[in-house]
């Protein structure tokens, strides 16, 4: 009677031990590792930044620094960090996605956005139109997007950070055009999304739909992604700057709880501060992000021209409010698809 029971229990134990032994960590003092969790279109930019910063860090401290990058939709990345992806720093598409690291998991202090200059956003971007070569549908501004027969490509604002900027930029234009008459603005948004044949889950997915599958006439895109499309598909597309757009501030932050646990707080902070140096600002410009440093921004003004930009804080009351009014269940985005 005893033997089978013992075997029964020990088999349970054995299974658990096997599973537990699959983990394990290794490390040494001479080398140090950093994980930067970022969003989709920053991949190429951070490859450059990491190379330069790692060399600098080695010169200063003698430590061999390896920076791992993780990219994906901004919201998804934030969720991974909440669920335990041990990022030392996050560099996401919008402040709302870093706010939740505080509200959901207390991974960093509530005032994280004041830790670094310029709302912790070392570079900015905006939303532009990408159209087919020669602009056959004559799309010049937000008002043209609702013309019949114009296919508009944007990702789903519920799943994509970039798409939220698209949505709010369109809203800002309509708000001005219709003098804050909300029913008219909603009607415009409704007609705009009637022209959207595909809602991809992320910005890169929409890029593929527009550029590779040939769907749609206008692609509402991150400015830097628009230039990437031009590079990848030369002579196929044109970039159109609308009369008004939105100042997108992709912020960066040290995930303090993780960095302190890994003993990487110092290097994480230095890494993010490095983004504000002239060297990194020029890299940002080269990758079609708008440098924060006005002197360096001037060098790129041919490529990245000035245009009137609304801001999330002044025009939409900050991310928490914008999220609640527009993108949460029952918000304006849900309403334009119902009925």
């Amino acid at each position, binding site marked *: *009677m005893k033997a*089978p*029971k013992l*075997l*029964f*229990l*020990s*088999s*349970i134990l*054995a*299974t*658990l031990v096997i*599973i537990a032994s699959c983990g394990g960590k290794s490390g040494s003092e001479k080398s140090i590792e950093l994980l930067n969790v970022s969003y989709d279109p920053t991949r190429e930019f951070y490859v450059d930044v990491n190379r330069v910063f790692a060399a600098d860090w080695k010169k200063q401290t003698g430590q061999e620094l390896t920076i791992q990058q993780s990219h994906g*939709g901004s*919201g*998804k990345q934030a*969720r991974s960090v*909440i669920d335990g992806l041990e990022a030392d720093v996050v560099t996401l598409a919008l402040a709302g996605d870093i706010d*939740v690291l505080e509200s*959901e998991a207390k991974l960093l202090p509530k005032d994280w956005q004041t830790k670094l200059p310029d709302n912790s956003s070392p570079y900015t971007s905006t939303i532009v139109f990408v159209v087919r070569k020669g602009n056959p549908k004559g799309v010049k501004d937000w008002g043209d997007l609702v013309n019949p027969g114009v296919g508009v490509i944007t990702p*789903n604002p*519920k*799943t994509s950070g970039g798409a939220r900027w698209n949505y709010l930029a369109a809203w800002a234009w309509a708000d001005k055009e219709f003098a804050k008459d909300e029913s008219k603005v909603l009607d415009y948004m409704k007609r705009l999304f009637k022209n*959207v*044949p*595909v*809602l*991809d*889950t992320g910005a890169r*997915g929409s890029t*593929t739909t527009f550029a*590779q*599958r*040939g*769907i749609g006439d206008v692609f509402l895109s991150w400015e830097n992604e628009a230039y990437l499309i031009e590079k990848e598909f030369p002579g196929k597309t044109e970039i159109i700057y609308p009369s008004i757009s939105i100042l997108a501030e992709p912020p960066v932050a040290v995930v303090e709880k993780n960095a302190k646990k890994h003993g990487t707080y110092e290097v994480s902070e230095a890494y993010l501060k490095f983004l504000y140096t002239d060297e990194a600002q020029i890299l940002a410009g080269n990758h079609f992000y708008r440098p924060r440093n006005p002197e360096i921004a001037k060098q790129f003004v041919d490529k990245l021209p000035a245009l009137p930009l609304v801001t999330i804080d002044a025009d939409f009351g900050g991310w928490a409010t914008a999220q609640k009014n527009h*993108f*949460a*269940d029952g918000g304006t985005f*849900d309403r334009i*698809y*119902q009925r």
Partner: protein
Amino acid sequence: MSKRRVIPGFGMSLGFSITWLSLIILIPLAALFIKAAGLGWEEWRELLGSPQVIAAAKLTFGASAAAATVSAVLGLLVTWVLVRYEFPGRRLLDAMIDLPFALPTAVAGITLCAIYAPNGWLGEILASLGIQAAYNWLGVFIALTFIGFPFVVRTLQPVMADMGKEIEEAAATLGAGRWTVFRRVVFPLLVPALITGFTLAFARAIGEYGSVIFISGNLPMKTEILPHLIIIQLEQYNYEAAAAIATGMLVVSFSLLFLINLLQRRIDWQNR
């Protein structure tokens, strides 16, 4: 333990099985239900009764059932060809059936989308006929057929291979025509395996996310599938709502699968 079992190792193997099942199925499912229980009744009703969820549920279950049905019919045909005939390239064809199992579903989705998009090979032809395949419900159906198809073939294949020609020959000697032999002798023997294959394809299709997401277009109220709504809830850090939709799906799926199982038993019993 008054009775000793004839086959040794019962305690140990049961121990392994229970621990393993708990770790990979029971504990995660329990966590799902606990999470879902965080919502009140009213919230449940409102969420699961919302037009968006209902539209997505119709598409998910409808397209899954349609895809599984088509997989069952075509799977029967393909299996028949693979088992009954010898021809050059049979092995290769046989191996190809498994591809949808091995291919990452995202790759399948992107590939199907490239082919069926209006500027793709087949999409172009379909578009000239006025049929929109990708970014439409049809795209969802195509993706689900692709991933469900091998389940039918692989469940039917061994049964058909074991069947032997004797009973057919016996039926023929008793004067049955070819059609009668198939309808009255062969087909009834295949039905249980066919239902199992259908069920597997159906169940797999309901939960499928990766391949559908690229081809469906994800338009709210039109081409959104339930797993995508779950992802949308997760993106909003609304874990309870995501768990509630998942639980709803699970309950409906389980009931459907249970019914199919009952049906299968009845057929089994009638065949006896």
